[in-house]
């Protein structure tokens, strides 16, 4: 169990910078999820913490000790690979006990540790098998088992579930969550999967282009995304964006002149928003609203044409064009299935996000 501090860590492969100064403090026992588009440097960061990649500059500390120059074996961390990386010439039991055998642990201790881990993961009947005689899900469990037999300071996961089918992924996700509640080990988890990130994380770290965009609890990232990137990345289907200008006027929405701020869209419609203090009147801004927050109503202020109706079973996704731009609505209302060629929509003020010209959140 340990805290992990990452301080202005940079990484370049030759002349190509990959990470541009990452700062992150991970508390003891915390579950951190790294998300971001492909190639943004998530794996690189994880592998630097593991000691598999050199740190170009900056400092990584585990339990307060600088580990930049420590070999992976001396960092006392465990890692679960996307490919599982099970040793094919060893049985499941030997795979799980390899780290303990390398540490010359006593035989009885190994047996009890492997036994306990196997029971926890339901691997008892498989201990004598070779990895090639296991299903994907079972291999995944063995990889988890290999990580938990010795109690390491931290667990690193690089997309551990991405090779499993949806149902199994759901099941393993719950197991990982239970395991974490059980072991309370500091964990860093890389994933592409929104739901994994939202459900597992104590805090999510959203990365883009080698830069950390926002760190916060899942709901913080969902409710108050720090910039356009996070707003568009978190949530599925993704947030809708509309370009416009911030206006302060008496028009407002007619409900109260004191709140007379709005976003003027290209067609002249003014969408009322709460007054923002950190943008100037007439500045170019981007308005964001999540598909599930858009309200369909006959008296809505904007009209959109319906391009496509996608029932997902749980709800319905409507693909619209608004001023010629793609726009999505997610609704649980089955009536939307028979939506006409045109619908009118409203944007509840409390669900609107405004981003300034640079793409940063404006409050």
């Amino acid at each position, binding site marked *: 169990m340990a805290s992990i501090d990452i301080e202005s860590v940079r990484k370049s492969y030759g002349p190509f910078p990959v990470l541009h100064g990452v700062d992150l403090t991970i508390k003891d026992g915390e579950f951190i999820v790294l998300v971001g588009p492909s190639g943004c440097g998530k794996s690189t960061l994880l592998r630097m913490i*593991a*000691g*598999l990649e050199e740190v170009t500059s900056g400092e990584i500390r585990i339990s307060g000790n600088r580990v930049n120059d420590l*070999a*992976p*074996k001396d960092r006392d*961390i*465990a*890692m679960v*690979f996307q*490919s*599982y*990386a*099970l*040793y*094919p*010439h060893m049985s499941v039991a030997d795979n799980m006990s*390899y*780290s303990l055998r*390398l*540490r010359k642990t006593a035989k009885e201790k190994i047996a009890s540790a492997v036994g306990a881990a196997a029971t926890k993961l339901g691997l008892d009947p498989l201990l004598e098998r*070779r*990895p*090639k*005689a*296991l299903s*994907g899900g079972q*291999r995944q469990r063995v990889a988890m088992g*290999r990580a938990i037999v010795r109690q390491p300071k931290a667990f690193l996961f690089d997309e551990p579930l991405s*090779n499993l089918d949806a149902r199994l992924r759901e099941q393993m996700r719950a197991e990982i969550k239970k395991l974490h509640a059980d072991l309370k080990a500091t964990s860093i988890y890389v994933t592409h999967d929104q739901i994994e990130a939202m459900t597992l994380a104590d805090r999510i770290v959203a990365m883009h282009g080698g830069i950390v965009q926002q760190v916060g609890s899942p709901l913080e990232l969902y409710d108050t995304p720090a910039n356009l990137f996070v707003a568009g990345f978190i949530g599925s289907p993704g947030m809708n964006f509309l370009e416009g200008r911030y206006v302060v006027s008496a028009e407002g929405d007619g409900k109260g002149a004191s709140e007379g701020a709005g976003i003027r869209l290209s067609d002249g419609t003014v969408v009322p928003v709460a007054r923002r203090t950190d943008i100037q009147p007439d500045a170019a801004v981007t308005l964001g609203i999540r598909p599930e927050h858009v309200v369909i109503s006959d008296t809505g202020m904007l009209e959109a044409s319906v391009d496509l109706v996608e029932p997902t079973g749980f709800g319905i996704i409507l693909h619209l064009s608004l001023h010629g731009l793609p726009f999505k609505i997610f609704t649980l209302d089955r009536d939307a299935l028979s939506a006409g060629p045109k619908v009118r929509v409203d944007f509840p003020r409390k669900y609107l996000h405004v981003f300034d010209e640079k793409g940063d959140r404006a409050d």
Partner: protein
Amino acid sequence: MRPGKLLLTGAHRGAILVYVVFALFPLFWLLKVSVTPNDLLYSEGVRMWPSRTTFEHFDFVIAHSAFPTFFKNSLIVSGATAIVVTILASLSGYALSRFSFKAKYWIVALMLITQMFPLVMLVAPIFRMLSPLGLTNSLTGLVIVYSAFNVPFATFLMQSFFDGIPKDLEEAAMIDGATQFVAFRQIILPLTLPGIAATLGFVFTAAWSELLFALMLISGNDAATFPVGLLTFVSKFSVDFGQMMAAGVLALIPACLFFLLIQRYLVQGLTAGAVKG
């Protein structure tokens, strides 16, 4: 099966059969001549099998010629070369496969260049180098020369086997607490057994049948290897085909045994199940 498919399968099998016959026919001829009595060798015309067979050639080669010495020498030289080369090539192949270092490009280029020269060009310089060291006329000298010639190719061979083993495996081992060398020895090497077997087999046969350097560096029967020994059956006026072929058949035995020994590693796909299947 549809008739078209049947025909195709038949043609396929037929083609393989033709190839196998073509490849094995010289070996069959070797065997045939080795059991043909001398008086029938030229008198019967071209026949697939002599009317009378004899083992007198084998008897002579084993009991009355220096062949057992040649045989032993060849075994020592080929075995030692195979082991030395395989050890060196697994280390260097691993380095080329896994590490990136400054001179890598030049080392690879240099190794390729060594493969470009006809060996005949090198006979004189090598003789000049070995003779002051007392390594001519010695099996050690041959082992050194053969190893030097085989290491580059064997390195590339081993490198390709290491390339086929996912890097994740040794990274997992290193995180589990192994040093890179321990990971190499305990995780990677066992998975490379097919590659090691292939390299051993390749180098062994190459050394076993090498004639040029054996002929140039060795004089006299004591340190001669078997390909050199075969030439003793050629005299000024005649070639003793029967005895030569008998020696040849005997020389095939160790190579066959060797491949029988390693074939189970050659065909085994040990990496199955390492990563997601």
